[in-house]
């Protein structure tokens, strides 16, 4: 683990063509890191996220993504992700290949990746049309009960990036609140970058079962206060729901979206 600036962490650990997972289930979405990837103009990325959310709507709209592995592509409680739709429906700014799963499947695939397994076994997809559009969904039989179980490849991103509340001076990272799939996404990845709200001398008194990622599981830790906004950081700031609602209008038209990105991300 090394402490880096956001710029250096992204340039060192995110390469063109990488399979990139920016995780955070509504909570702790690493927007600052995503924006830095956009500024550095990475290309041909395979983006992995259960809920692409606004951050991938922005990355897709800016033409960074060749492929998307996801399970729910909406603006939570608001409606569509217009840039995602434009890419899938009209191939703008470039065609987007999609690998579509359910939440249960993605969660199991990260879990299997963290567990070092080549695939995940669960009970899913039966009776749905999704297996007919995703060749990665197979079915196997339990050798004891004969029951048909679902099998999908585990997720092993080239790099996972998450945002967390705290790192200590050694680079260990503490996550609290809605922890989502962050731990699994980090442990499943070849490289892991964590942006944090603050760096403290010591986590101090805490639950003996606190969710902590040891520094030796991470590639880089980056101080990035407010790095999850407009998502939120439990204990620091709350979700900017008004912005999520406003995004619907910002992203609806290509020009307005591009202008907003120029004004708010690129410069």
């Amino acid at each position: 683990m090394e402490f880096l600036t956001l710029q250096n962490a992204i340039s060192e650990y995110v390469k063109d063509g990488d399979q990139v997972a920016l995780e955070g289930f509504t909570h702790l979405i690493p927007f600052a890191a995503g924006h830095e990837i956009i500024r550095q103009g990475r290309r041909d990325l395979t983006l992995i996220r259960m809920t692409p959310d606004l951050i991938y709507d922005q990355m897709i709209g800016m033409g960074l993504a060749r492929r998307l592995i996801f399970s729910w592509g909406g603006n939570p409680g608001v409606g569509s992700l217009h840039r995602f739709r434009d890419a899938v429906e009209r191939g703008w700014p470039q065609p987007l290949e999609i690998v579509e799963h359910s939440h249960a499947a993605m969660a199991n695939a990260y879990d299997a990746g963290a567990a070092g397994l080549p695939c995940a076994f669960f009970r899913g997809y039966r009776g749905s049309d999704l297996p007919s559009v995703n060749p990665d969904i197979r079915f196997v039989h339990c050798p004891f009960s004969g029951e048909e179980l679902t099998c999908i490849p585990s997720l092993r991103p080239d790099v996972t990036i998450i945002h967390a509340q705290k790192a200590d001076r050694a680079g260990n990272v503490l996550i609290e609140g809605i922890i989502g799939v962050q731990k699994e996404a980090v442990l499943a990845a070849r490289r892991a970058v964590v942006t944090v709200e603050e760096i403290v001398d010591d986590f101090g008194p805490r639950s003996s079962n606190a969710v902590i990622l040891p520094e030796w599981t991470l590639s880089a830790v980056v101080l990035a206060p407010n790095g999850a906004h407009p998502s939120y950081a439990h204990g620091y700031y709350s979700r900017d729901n008004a912005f999520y609602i406003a995004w619907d209008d910002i992203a609806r038209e290509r020009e307005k979206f591009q202008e907003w990105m120029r004004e708010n991300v690129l410069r």
Partner: protein
Amino acid sequence: MTYTPTEMMTVAAARALKNEDVCFVGIGLPSAACNLARLTHAPRIKLIYESGTLGTKPEVLPLSIGDGELCETALTTVSVPEIFRYWLQGGRISVGFLGGAQVDRFANLNSTVIGPYAKPKVRLPGSGGATEIATGCGQIFIIMRQGARSFVKQLDFLTSLGHGRTGRERRDLGFKTKGPALLVSDLCILRPDPETSEMMVTSLHPGISREQVVEATGWPMRFAEEVTETVPPGKDELEVLRDLLARTAKAHGSAEGHE
């Protein structure tokens, strides 16, 4: 006391929930219905959101499935893999709430695409938790606005299994869970025919005619032998619901809050 069709729909769905239920809650109308039940006749109902919050008691409705409010008011919060593995797949959930862009007569749901999958006219958000909620929960309640474009003869895509395209697939696949046991729309209440599993109108909301329901349905809608009239929302139900939505709108800085 006057009320809107959405209020009728939300209240009717809330009434179907019991104190003993463990509910897997989606955002939007299901969240409103579940919390209305919790704040009225079912104070001991357990609400679970797929973001990992167990036994949550939000003061305001979440805009997203993972709002901080859900975690701060929960008994505890677990990881997303745990929610889907130990709690949903583990068979701990009695009622799952679903909706979608399209529903068919056997209560199968489409939340994936309008038009062909490869070249969609409208790309919808997709499954999220729905595909496994549909098969993993003890029973499924569906809450959807009714219209010829949402209640369709033929789904463009089957995202979440109801009773199957012919009404027999769920049984044939050997699921022990009930599947869709209730569909509440803004016009009426539907329940499956015990024989064919086709959804039938069992209750019409006050002032709604059979003709209106037939017109708002893409297949020849069936009516149960005995069709009752839905009890209109009570004063207390409406007050609690409106307070909840007002608190929510205020918190989210929007007119509609959860919509």
